[in-house]
């Protein structure tokens, strides 16, 4: 580190340099440089197998890097585990609570393990379960909860130690839209309270709620920026064409020289068109009625697909 240690400027919550991990000959994470400012919500995006979970596990100090280093909450993941772990909450991808214990028993068990004394245990349990909207299910066995409730219970357990940094590995995968909204409203509150959050997600509507994004592909960071910067990086404009057979419009559009990407969304064909054509120009090119074409705002789902298909996530 060459940073002058003069003033305690708000430090980055995470600063990874050349962070790498090999499993035998397979390089899962390849020299990742990543800075996450204190108080940010960083969305970690990328295809399956890109290395997102491996990055999170190294930052959580549960997996040792085979190269590089990362400072997490001011200490190195190589040497500072004792400093990092008490202040960090890590939620892995798979349900890892006791299915045969009740919700209350799970929370109490993990609170005990983490050395929280009895009166404080009760207080935090009631507070956290209340915030999750789970005050009424304390006596239900964890294994019998719905998918959304299981994830909220895992988050509650992760929050017991009031961590300054949360690492969440696809916390809402398989969770229905209503529960996902509830989950994100909890993350919003934590963010407002100053918690730094790193979240891996396959949901692009969640990516849009992050303050910063990093795209990971084949173990490397290929793009970072705010959601607005990422959508602005997509070349061309997005147009929507209303049609009885949107599929036919898409089939016709694909492969045309100016068409960057095309797909069906219900009764709409959504086409990314190179350059900056007006809807009328697109209508003429595709031979559809002018009134059926309208300009749309580039969304993260489209941006991800276009950038991924260019091999440039």
């Amino acid at each position, binding site marked *: 580190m060459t940073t002058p240690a003069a003033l305690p400027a708000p430090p980055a919550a995470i600063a990874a340099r050349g962070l790498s991990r090999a499993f035998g000959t397979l390089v899962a994470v390849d020299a990742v440089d990543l800075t996450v400012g204190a108080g940010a919500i960083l969305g970690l*995006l*990328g*295809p*399956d*197998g890109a290395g997102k979970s491996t990055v999170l596990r190294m930052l959580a100090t549960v997996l040792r890097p085979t190269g590089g280093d990362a400072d997490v909450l001011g200490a190195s993941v190589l040497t500072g585990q004792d400093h990092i772990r008490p202040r960090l909450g890590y939620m892995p991808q798979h349900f890892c609570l006791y299915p045969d214990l009740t919700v209350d028993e799970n929370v109490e068990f993990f609170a005990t393990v983490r050395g929280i004394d009895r009166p404080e245990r009760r207080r935090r349990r009631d507070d956290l379960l209340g915030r999750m909207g789970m005050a009424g299910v304390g006596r239900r066995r964890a294994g019998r*909860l*719905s*998918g*959304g*409730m299981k994830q909220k219970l895992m988050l509650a357990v992760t929050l017991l130690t009031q961590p300054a940094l949360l690492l969440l590995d*696809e916390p809402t*995968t*398989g*969770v*229905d*839209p*209503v*529960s*996902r*909204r509830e989950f994100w409203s909890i993350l919003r509150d934590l963010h407002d309270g100053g918690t730094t959050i790193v979240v891996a997600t*396959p949901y*692009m*509507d969640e990516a849009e709620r992050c303050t910063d994004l990093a795209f990971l592909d084949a173990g490397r960071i290929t793009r970072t920026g705010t959601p607005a910067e990422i959508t602005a990086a997509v070349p061309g404009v997005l147009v929507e064409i209303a049609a009885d057979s949107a*599929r036919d419009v898409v089939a016709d559009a694909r492969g045309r020289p100016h068409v960057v990407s095309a*797909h*069906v*969304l*219900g*009764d709409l064909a959504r086409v990314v068109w190179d350059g900056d054509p007006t809807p009328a120009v697109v209508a003429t090119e595709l031979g559809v009625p002018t009134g059926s074409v309208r300009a749309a705002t580039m969304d993260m*789902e489209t941006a*991800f*697909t276009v950038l*991924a*298909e260019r091999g440039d996530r």
Partner: protein
Amino acid sequence: MIASGPAAPATSVSVRGLTKSFGHVTAVRGIDLEVRAGEIFGFLGPNGSGKTTTIRMLTGALRPTSGSVEVLGTDVVRHPDRIRCRIGYMSQRFSLFEDLTVDENLRFYGGVYGLDAATFAERREYILRMAGLTDRVGELARNLSVGWRQRLALGTASIHRPELLFLDEPTSGVDPVARRRFWDLLTDLSEGGVTLFVTTHYMEEAINCTRLAFMNRGRVIADGSPREIRDSLAEPGGPAPSLEEAFVALTTRTGRR
């Protein structure tokens, strides 16, 4: 009951008063469903609303507490075995053998459905091409990325050319590019005449279904085309909500479990 004649029925799934209780918990409460041949039928609802239980009854894996289930013209409650070779099922957890190669997985499922050598060879070729796995026949399933595994699982679920394919959250946790590719494959299957019955939590997938049924707390509380469902929830004179907003409104209106 309508006796099914020799002609192929235009209805793929017909369910009346279907109910399933586990002890004193009633997971499915007297639902009616009608899926027409050739549809891409989207079955939506929050976690724990009874979708998977319903699918397990439709496939003959679980016996209903009461009600009738007719699939492809067969009474599934009485003859669960008669439809097994005519339907396919792809579950949330891909039913692949991790320690077998791509080829061995296909061979296994070809054997389960009793395909003869010529049919198997033809189906194997088709699936490898469809899934883009031609160059990976010797790889272990567990070494494939989730997108490949998902397409292989779709292949094994449809190796016997089912007339009706059940897909239970087939794209959960898959990135947007892989999801779009997967849906291109589903649309191809649909155009080839396969009826699809699919559950998903992704509204951008649900909107590509021809018809939707929405389930909450064991009951079907809305059904129709995506457009009809959205329109039915619009404020008088206001714009139709997005499908996600419709999902949230329907769930909150009928209460959470």
